[in-house]
């Protein structure tokens, strides 16, 4: 005959508690997480890993928007946190895109991150490399950051302080 332990329900409650903690650790903490820091002027914006998990509208890929004045440099600091028991090796790439065409590469480096360690990468986006701004048009660029099968998209919108403050290039008349 099987006898019920005296504190059976207490043991079951403790088992549920241990299960909860285990799920938080295995499913919530362990894994590969990336955090992006973008600095424009004196203001730093942090894109936490959970930002990319949101889906508004449902099913849509998340994109982050940053505004910067034309001429300002945009500084990126990208951290990959390896919360696993093994070394994580991956190629991290950042590139600049406009209208689905690659403009140029910003960063590309093979990374090998030890268990419970992190890698920090830095690069800068400068409008000096972008040529002349489109007056009255779109000066939006997409910074794509990829590692493994993960792709992050950050849209940088360069705006003008005012149309008349832009130095306009007047063509020199050719002598006849």
């Amino acid at each position: 005959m099987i006898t019920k332990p005296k504190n059976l329900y207490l043991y079951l409650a403790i088992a549920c508690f241990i299960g909860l903690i285990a799920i938080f650790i295995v499913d919530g903490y362990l894994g590969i997480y990336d955090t992006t820091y973008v600095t424009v002027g004196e203001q730093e914006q942090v894109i936490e890993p959970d930002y990319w998990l949101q889906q508004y509208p449902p099913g849509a890929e998340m994109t982050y928007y940053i505004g910067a004045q034309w001429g300002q440099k945009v500084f990126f600091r990208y951290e990959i946190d390896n919360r696993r028991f093994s070394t994580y090796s991956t190629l991290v790439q950042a590139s600049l895109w406009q209208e689905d065409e690659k403009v140029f590469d910003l960063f590309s480096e093979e990374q090998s991150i030890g268990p419970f360690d992190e890698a920090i990468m830095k690069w800068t986006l400068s409008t000096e490399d972008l040529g002349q701004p489109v007056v009255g048009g779109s000066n939006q660029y997409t910074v794509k950051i990829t590692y493994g099968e993960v792709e992050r998209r950050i849209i940088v919108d360069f705006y003008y302080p005012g149309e008349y403050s832009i130095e306009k290039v007047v063509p020199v008349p050719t002598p006849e």
Partner: protein
Amino acid sequence: MRTYILYGFGILLCISGIGYLASEYVNYLSEPGKLVCLILMVGMLGFLGKYFEKIGW
């Protein structure tokens, strides 16, 4: 009486610990993970209630 105070203290610590973990990591849980957490939470509170009922509370 002292035993019950200790039990109460332990339960409060457990619940606050789970609350802290939830606030830190619930965003990173997968959908099945969230569901299992919910079931375990209901089970834990249910079993605790049953235990206290059995000991005469």
